[in-house]
Every structure is written in structure tokens, then in C-alpha cells.
């Protein structure tokens, strides 16, 4: 008797299973047909790193303080400092980000006090050659031209109050390692 009840119960459950899957047949599929349909990346997306420029002057905001270089957990950034002899402003002579190492954690954006570097929602940067994934200053500035950003309002070097969202600032003296040599970073 138990066996017959178990059989009927099992058979009924098999039918319930069929019904559950059949429910999905008339429904709309959830597939997004890339590349004809694309996902709008949310505002906070952490994708490719870009260098931001001042909207009026078109120059890079970066003043080569090297904080992002030292805070990057995977040493993906390489910066050469230089000083403009006329205005006595520091600027980066060379700024390289190795996208084969970058883990898109967002620490560089968080520690920057000058709105110089940002993670955008761009994700279509696949290439056939790995060397093309190392972005130099010109490329980083170029892909950052159309990126809108909210200035952090503190352009001076005063200590910014910890805003909800950003960690406390870090001392420029913090170092990960002495490695600023980008050849090793690219291997």
C-alpha cells in the first residue's frame, strides 16, 4: 500500500515538475542581445580607469602626488613626476596603467584628492595584442574626456573631512614597495 502511494505521489510530482518548466515557455526571455542591446552601466560602475581633465582648460587634473601609485594593491600604476619650470606646478610626465594587472578595486579613485583618476563604466576594451592593454597618459586622457565627474570641491591640499563614501585620506609616505619600474609590471 505504501509503495502504491509512493508511486502515485512520485508520478504526481513528475507532472508538477513538467508544469513548472512549461510555465516558462510563453514568458519573455531575459536575454540581452549584445551588441544590439547594451546594458546601461550604473553610475558607480568600476570599469576601466581614466584620467580626468579640467573641463575648461582641457589639462589633466593630476599633479603627480603619487598617492594612487603607492596605494594600488597590485602595483598597476606607474607615474613619472615632472615640474613645469614656468608655473612651478607638478605634473605627470608619464602616467601608465597596466590593465593586465589592474583589479578594478577603486582604491586609486578613493585616495585621490584632486579628481584626477576615476573608474568608469567602460568595459569594451578587449584587444588582440596584450601590449595594447597598457594605457599611457595620452590614451588615459583621451578615454577620460567624455566622463562626467563630481568635483570633490577641495582643490587645495587641506585635509578633506571624511565624507560618507570615502575613506580617510592616507599619508603620501605610505609605500607598497620600491617598485616603480614598469618593466617588471608588464611582464
Amino acid at each position, binding site marked *: 500500500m505504501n509503495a502504491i502511494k509512493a508511486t502515485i*505521489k*512520485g*508520478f504526481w*510530482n*513528475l507532472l*508538477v*515538475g513538467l*508544469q*513548472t*518548466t512549461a*510555465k516558462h515557455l510563453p514568458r519573455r526571455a*531575459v536575454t540581452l542581445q549584445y551588441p544590439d542591446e547594451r546594458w546601461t552601466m*550604473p553610475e*558607480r*560602475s*568600476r570599469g576601466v580607469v581614466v584620467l580626468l581633465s579640467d573641463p575648461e582648460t582641457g589639462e589633466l587634473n593630476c599633479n603627480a602626488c603619487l598617492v594612487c601609485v603607492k*596605494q594600488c*594593491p*597590485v602595483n598597476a600604476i606607474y607615474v613619472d613626476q615632472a615640474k613645469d619650470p614656468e608655473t612651478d606646478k607638478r605634473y605627470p610626465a608619464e602616467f601608465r596603467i597596466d590593465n593586465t594587472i589592474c*583589479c*578594478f*578595486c*577603486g*582604491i586609486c579613485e*578613493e585616495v585621490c584628492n584632486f579628481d584626477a583618476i576615476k*573608474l568608469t563604466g567602460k568595459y569594451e576594451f578587449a584587444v588582440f595584442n596584450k601590449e595594447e592593454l597598457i594605457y599611457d597618459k595620452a590614451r588615459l586622457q583621451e578615454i577620460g574626456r567624455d566622463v562626467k565627474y563630481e568635483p570633490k570641491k577641495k582643490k587645495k591640499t587641506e585635509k578633506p573631512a*571624511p565624507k*560618507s*563614501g570615502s*575613506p*580617510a*585620506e*592616507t*599619508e603620501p609616505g*605610505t609605500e*607598497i*614597495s620600491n617598485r616603480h619600474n614598469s618593466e617588471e609590471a608588464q611582464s
Partner: protein
Amino acid sequence: MIDTERQNLRDEEFLINMGPQHPSTHGVLRLMLKMEGEFIRGITPHVGYLHRSIEKIAENRTYNQFTPFTDRIDYCASMPSNLAWATAVEKLAGIEVPERAEYIRVIMVELNRIASHLIWLGTMSLDLGAVTPFLYAFREREWILDLFEMTCGQRLTYHYIRIGGVSRDIPPEFEKSCRAFIKDFRTRVDDYEAILTENPIFLGRTRGIGILPLGLAKDLGASGPTIRGSNYPWDIRRAEPYSVYNKFDFEIPTGKNGDVWDRYIVRIREFRQSCRIIEQALDGLPEGDMIRAKMPAVLRPPAGEVFSRIEAPRGEMGYYIVSNGDKKPYRVKIRTASYGNLQTLAPMSLGWKIADLVAIFGSIDVILPEVDR
């Protein structure tokens, strides 16, 4: 005619290598199986194919810089991994986390628990032959990942739960979407149960298979749903409450016999319990905008050591940190759930067939990056 005696043919036991690349080992795990016909007489797991020296890397990074690495220890449950690290360092350095941040942490961790269990459900039913729940589980996951993406910008390695709180506040659209998700998800869990739980084929593949005795589980260090399936209500959220879990009302599901079906049903019930917790957390979310404690610029915890553990989706995840007062830890040891759970695979599978091995392995929910770190 072959003279078996003279040629010493052993025709009973042979070794099969379930290689590092195999559809059913969830990650790069190598299993040497000693087989007698169809039956398993011994298993030797070979791990280490995914070893990335994360613990050694920790000795060369500051505490805040190490947080992105914790994401990758268990990338299916990245929020709890972040949380384990944050809780350990906060315990070590005596940092108090604002309450709003604690509630947000709970919501994120429970959402990630659902997401991780969805991966488990998909892959286990895929191993057993039912392909459709895999696709359904991943469709649910997409909603959770969208919630995470709108909050922290990433879909897998979130780097959201930081030392001292969380990195950014939840956006205004989060709550509505999250509540809608919970409401929809409850009906989906009913769907999964309709396809699998009482299905006679599924029962035939999982009932009574791979029984894990409680004593053995405790000896080998199993935790999480693996040990809860053996009728032992051990959950760190209740045993050593952390964060604000003592404010929420939820049950600890357990199984009765410790077989594959019990471990399956424990996780299915955990889906529903997580939904309860998320709803309570959303209801009780405190106002304010303090979501990260004020911390010194460079965190230098006092010299000492701490061990702190949390309930990750797979079991206990614990961090043992030794600090000598410097800005980088002296030693970090990560105790992951899958390491202990994987050890139960060998004794549990003896005497069963290969098809059962696949079911048993699916029910333990091992993820290899956790094992190898």
C-alpha cells in the same frame, strides 16, 4: 588463455584520475579515485592548483590595501569574505562600526548568501542532469548582481565591506528593488522545490547517499550546511553572534540524516531564512549617513593577535591575524570553510559509485579558491 596467476594480474582495483579539468569538480581539483569496478574504495584529493599565496601577500600590504584580495578568496561569496577580514581587523584594532553600516553589511552578506547558494543549486542540479535549474538560478542571480552593481559598481568582487564600515551608502533605488526581489524570489524558490525536492528521480539520486556521521564531521572540521545536514544546529551567527545578527529573528535549518538530500534541503531553507533576515534588516535600517568609522590615516593596530570567524555561505570563515604594531600585518592565516568540508569527501564517498560521488561533491559545495587560497 592468459595465465593470471603467472602474470599476477590484479583485476580488481584500478586508479582513475578525475583530473584538474573536469565538469564536475567545481574548480581545479584533482581526485585520484581507487575504484573496484564501479565502486569507490578510496579517494585522494590533490589540491593546490589554485594557490595564489594570498596569505603571504597579506604580509606586504597594509590592512586597507588587502581588502580587494579578500574578495578573491571566495569570489562567489565576496561580501562575507570582506566581512570576515573587516571584523577581524576591527576586533584587533578596537574599531566600532556605525549601526547603519552594520545593517547594510547584514543585508549585503545575506544577499550574497542567496547568490552563493544559487550557484550551488545550479551546479549541483547540473551535475545531476537537470539543466534547467542552473539557468533559473543564474537568472535570479542577475537581479542580485544588479543590486550589488548599483551599490558598489561591481558584479563579482565587490570590495564593499571595508574596515570600519562600508565604502558607500546604498543608493536610493536599492531598497525598492531589493524588496521587489525578495518578493519575487520566494516564488522562485517554490519553483526550484517543485522541480527538485520531491522529484522521485532526484530523491533516488540523493536520499540515503553519502551519509556524514556527526562525529566524523566534527573531527574533520566541517562547518556550515555540511555539518548542519547531520542534525547539528551549529551556526556562527547564533553561536558567537557578530555584527547585529542578535537583533534578527531567523531559524537555523538542519537535516536529519546527514545525506545528500538533507544538505540540499538545508540550503533551500536557508534561502527563505535569508529572505527573512533581509526584510527585517531593511525594515530596521537606521537613519543617518555615518557608514564608516573614523579611522587614522594609516591603520596601525596594537600588537597582538586575534581570531575572528563569521558564517560564510559554505561554512566558517575565520581570520587569524598577528600584528606587531606595524601598518602591515605580521601574519594572516585564513581558515576557510571549503578546506574542512573537502576533507569529508573521502570518508563519505567510500563504497558509493562514481555517479554518487558527483552528487556528494555537489552537496558539500566546495569552491576551490577557498581551499587553495
